């Protein structure tokens, strides 16, 4: 187990989220960043201080915000793609190379989903696909380990909360989970996550 700030809430997490070669699809309503919050939570919990590629066509991820949510920006690489296809291709390269990949895209075909899942299986990485989409679409694929619809939930100013509806998972029942983004994290504890070894 990694000694991340989130270890306190680890037992409360669904078990299949800890399985590592996996790609999860996180959906959120348009105009929110709830899926990015759950992605940060998952990365801090499961992935730890290994490198992460964040790729999208509009790279508006804010590193201090990621640091506040428990991801060390020193482990993060950011990439800007021209279109969704290039973003998915970049995430695939990262996953195949053993990194974690967070890709924000709108269009996602079944073929692209299958390719991402295969790349994650090959490299042993963790893939997170962030989309602004409805809970059900025609292109829903079962290649991913799970699919979530994430809504923001009422919370206190220092602990944003998320209501995550599990739409599909391999070997788990659908349900609704409530995640608190910063619970159990000692606000004064410094983040001491070492960076990359080779690529630095």
């Amino acid at each position: 187990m990694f000694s991340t700030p989130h270890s306190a809430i680890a037992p409360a997490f669904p078990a299949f989220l800890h399985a590592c070669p996996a790609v999860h699809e996180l959906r959120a309503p348009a105009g929110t960043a709830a899926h990015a919050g759950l992605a940060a939570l998952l990365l801090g919990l499961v992935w730890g201080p290994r490198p992460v590629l964040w790729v999208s066509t509009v790279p508006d991820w804010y590193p201090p915000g990621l640091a506040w949510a428990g991801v060390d920006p020193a482990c993060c690489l950011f990439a800007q793609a021209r279109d969704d296809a290039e973003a998915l291709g970049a995430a695939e390269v990262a996953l195949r190379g053993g990194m974690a990949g967070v890709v924000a895209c709108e269009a996602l075909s079944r073929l692209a989903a299958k390719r991402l899942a295969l790349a994650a299986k090959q490299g042993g990485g963790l893939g997170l696909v962030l989309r602004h989409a409805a809970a059900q679409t025609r292109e829903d694929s079962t290649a991913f380990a799970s699919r979530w619809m994430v809504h923001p939930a009422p919370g206190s100013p220092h602990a944003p909360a998320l209501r995550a509806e599990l739409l599909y998972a391999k070997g788990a029942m659908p349900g609704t989970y409530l995640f608190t983004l910063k619970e159990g994290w000692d606000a004064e504890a410094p983040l001491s996550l070492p960076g990359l070894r080779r690529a630095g």
Partner: protein
Amino acid sequence: MQKRRFLSLACAGRDDLANLALWCQAFTPLTALDPPDGVMLDITGCAHLFGGEAGLMARLAARLPNARMAVADTAAAAWGLARYGKPGSPDILLLPLAALRLAPEPIARLRRIGIRTIGQLARLPRAGLVAGYGQAPALRLAQALGEAPEVIRFITAPPEWREAEPFMEPLWLPAQLQAALTKLAARLCARLTAATLGATALTARFYRVDRACPAIHLAFAAPCRDEAQIAKLLIEKLAQEIDPGFGIEAVALEAPLTEPLALVQQDMSAKPPDYARPLNTLLNRLGSTRIWRVAPHASHIPEFATERVTVKARPVAWPKPHHPRPLRLLNPPVLITAIAPVPDDPPVQFTWDGKTHRLRWATGPERIARDWWAHPHDPTRPEAEKIRDYYQVEDMEAARFWLFRAGLHEGVAVPRWYLHGLFA
């Protein structure tokens, strides 16, 4: 020491001399621009690779049909012979004075005393020549005869780590070029391994028969000498970036930048994962401007608090933020209309993109003043008063936003509200 031999190439009406000089590096590493119309090649010790000087000149003449060229012991003599000489007569003493690259004025004055050829000039006493006609004629003459040095500004020579291969027949099929690149990568990596070095940049040059010299540039996130990976990256770019034209007659693979890279024991035990591999692929596919790391930057202004650094840079430790920061930051901030019950108070409602959000609560303000001493005045920036009051707000659907108000109620301008980030 071998006697130096220079080849001067004069191509009338050709403007792209830089490209021509680069292409000429297929024959010798030392080539120089010779404006306005030529290229100077130092072919010392290179001519035998192309069947002697006659063979080299025949080869050049086949590619540059309109060019005139000559070989001589000095650059100045080669220049004169290429432009004023008759083919097959290497005697510069018979050439007119213009072959010495002299200005028209001393030539006219020398003609007045009957000096028309270089041979006649060489017979004049030098001291009198300098006294009567300035330094230039005597200096040019000495340079042409090899008595005085001449500075030639060669373009950057190919690096030490270079592997090149000429081909009997020009190549233009992708499979042929791929095979050539694979072979060159293997040769270069073998040399780099022997020297325990890794390349951090690579250039593959393709010398086309029609005097063009396209190139593929590779960058690496960490020193690399993995021939399979290098060949894969080159082949990926080959189809997009290289037009073979009428054929490619030589390919060169050069490593302009190298760094020490220790040998690694190849064994069966588990190794730490090598993240440089996917990074190299991404770096070359997206280009170095579209993939980056971030480093903290000492600024309170949210959009200036981070800076992009290259993938090669060492990761820096990030301080823990003192205040909540959003996961997504909208850049530039979006102007919204907000309703606040009391001036200088958090809003109760705002409209963004046609949608109205009623707010449940707000925290703040977190006042951030602009570092006015660091930036010149820019009237297009949101805050004329150089003050922003940030509020974290949550609407009735629990979506969390980061708003700020630029300006004060009784300030120089009406307060404006902006949406700057999304928490969840």
